[in-house]
């Protein structure tokens, strides 16, 4: 699985559309050029060795670690938003207040677990 595919899956579940993968690769090259070799190495290790990179990214974001991975997630979100098939990932087309509250509560709890897991996973990455 390519790093783009892995990151996309971590955020959106489904498989990555080729147009997104292509754009991601293009931007990633520019992005990575602005980071040190160590950061690029960490990124590679993270996407190759760690299964739950969603958890890892969250912990990295809070702990100010793995900056390239954190950026990569952000970039993927920007690119993915432009695809018609992804609109419902970003936009509520219907008012569902109770469902909204419940899913946010679920999201909050899920993220707490992910964060703790991410802290543990951070320790697995050399140099971090």
């Amino acid at each position, binding site marked *: 699985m390519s790093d783009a595919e892995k990151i996309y899956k971590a955020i959106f579940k489904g498989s990555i559309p080729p147009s997104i993968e292509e754009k991601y690769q*293009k931007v990633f090259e*520019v992005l990575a050029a602005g980071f040190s070799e160590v950061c690029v190495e960490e990124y590679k290790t993270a996407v190759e060795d760690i299964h739950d990179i969603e958890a890892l990214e969250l912990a990295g974001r809070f702990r100010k670690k793995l900056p390239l991975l954190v950026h990569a997630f*952000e970039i993927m979100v920007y690119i993915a938003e432009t695809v*018609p098939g992804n609109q419902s990932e970003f*936009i*509520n087309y219907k008012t569902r207040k109770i469902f909204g509250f419940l899913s946010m509560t679920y999201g909050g709890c*899920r993220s707490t677990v992910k964060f703790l897991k991410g802290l543990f996973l951070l320790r697995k990455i050399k140099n971090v």
Partner: protein
Amino acid sequence: MFDVVIVGSGLSGVAAALGFIKKGIKPCIIDVGSKPETLPPITENFYEYRKTTDSSSLMLGERLEGLHNLLHKDRPLPVKLTSPRMQFVVRGSQSFSPTIEENYRLVQSFASGGLANAWGAGVYRYNKRDLDGFPVSESELSPYYEEIKQEIGMSGSNDDLVKYFGREDRLQHPLELSANAERLYAKYSSHKKKLNREGVFLGRPRLAVLSEDFGERKACDYSNLEFWQPDLSYIYTPTLTLKKLIKEGKVIYKSGYLAKSWTREDNVLFVHSEDIRDNSIVQFRCRKLVLAAGAVNSARLALASNRDFQSRLNLLDNPALQFPLILLHRIGSRLETRAFGLTQLNIVFAFEGGQRPLQGSLLEITSPARAEFFQNFPFSARDNLIFIRNLLPAMMVLQLFFPSAPENGAELKLNADDKLELRGKDFPFQGQRIKSVLKTFRKLGAYSFPSLVIKVPNGFGIHYAGTLPMVSKPNRSYTCSPNGELYGEPGVFVADASVLPVLPAKNCSFFVMANAMRTADYMSSVLSGEL
């Protein structure tokens, strides 16, 4: 030789041009004049378009330039200016006017029409209090406001904010409110007496945005395209006037020229300019020169013409705070895909103790990309999307402006290597103020926390002013007379916001346009020998 050369085609430049044309003078405008790429305009609603079309070219650009702030963290731009079709507004600014910025972020435009290609179109008269220290009165400016209003078209209402914004006749009805804004307004109406006693006033903004057709310009269609598409005809921009004046043969527009300095021989002014196509130097000769290059670049021209690499000039901008606000009962609502994506309401805080009031714009956040908010939520990537879907439709942003004066403004200096040095000072935002603003919004059913309030970087208020202030009796360089003439520089006049000695917490462009026209009126009388 031209009677008049105006440097710049932004709001101040075109307002000055209108003033000359009215008096039968045909001015020459010289301008760098970057233009937007000629791409087919999006005519559909932003969200309808995205449902069926891959919007990467609109939102990210062909060269993925829409990701500017992610790829160039050291040189971020205000979000609206990162949008690919809007980037022409700031294109090339570092090469045309290189800067060294310390605790400051300058946004410069060398576009035809200037910064106002991307502006929020909030237009507010300065009242007596705002003009305190300025040697021109409200009544002297009044007729020019009327003429400018005729040109730009204005919507709004004479509501509770009349006290601060003045009464405006012949306004188009205000734009439709978003559901969030409607809710805030309703709450305000029911708590009005108490809030007014506390010095809080809420009302509809005055906007150079059309709610009804106006000549050939169509009314706002609530397409949410404000961040993405330049030249939306319902939002006034100076290019509308400029194109019309060029077509009617009323101005000579010389684009592609970067003015570098001026010199004088007898009564003739020479504007030394660089042709940006081949870097050759071209001279424009004129009897009178109008500086309308924006407060920073007009100051640069004045310093460069004097070869002055010592003087430090004041540079004002409104310090600002951004408050994200959540309307609890709207959480989980559908996103309002049909909306006006800029200012919905204005709020004025007139605190006790005689200080100048604070003014805020309540903005809808329906126009920017949803991804823009991704990093603002503290959850995992997938869960952040849940919050983006459910929380963003319930959110607005308050951009609260503070007044600025030389003691808390920035400093500007020209170096011998042509770089402008800018040094910002941190504004003392008082925690108590922030708390009382949050308390007010709680009463209106909108919630936030002090830790979520964002300090807008120095310079990102983008209301630059005060570099060549107008004083009643000028007696030193870099000040101008009540008619706008620069001290020690006969024939050189200033028409942009450089002339403001202090900056009230009120977007300054409507005032600047009226004052530019007033200056042009005076200059026309001098040229025609009346004075």
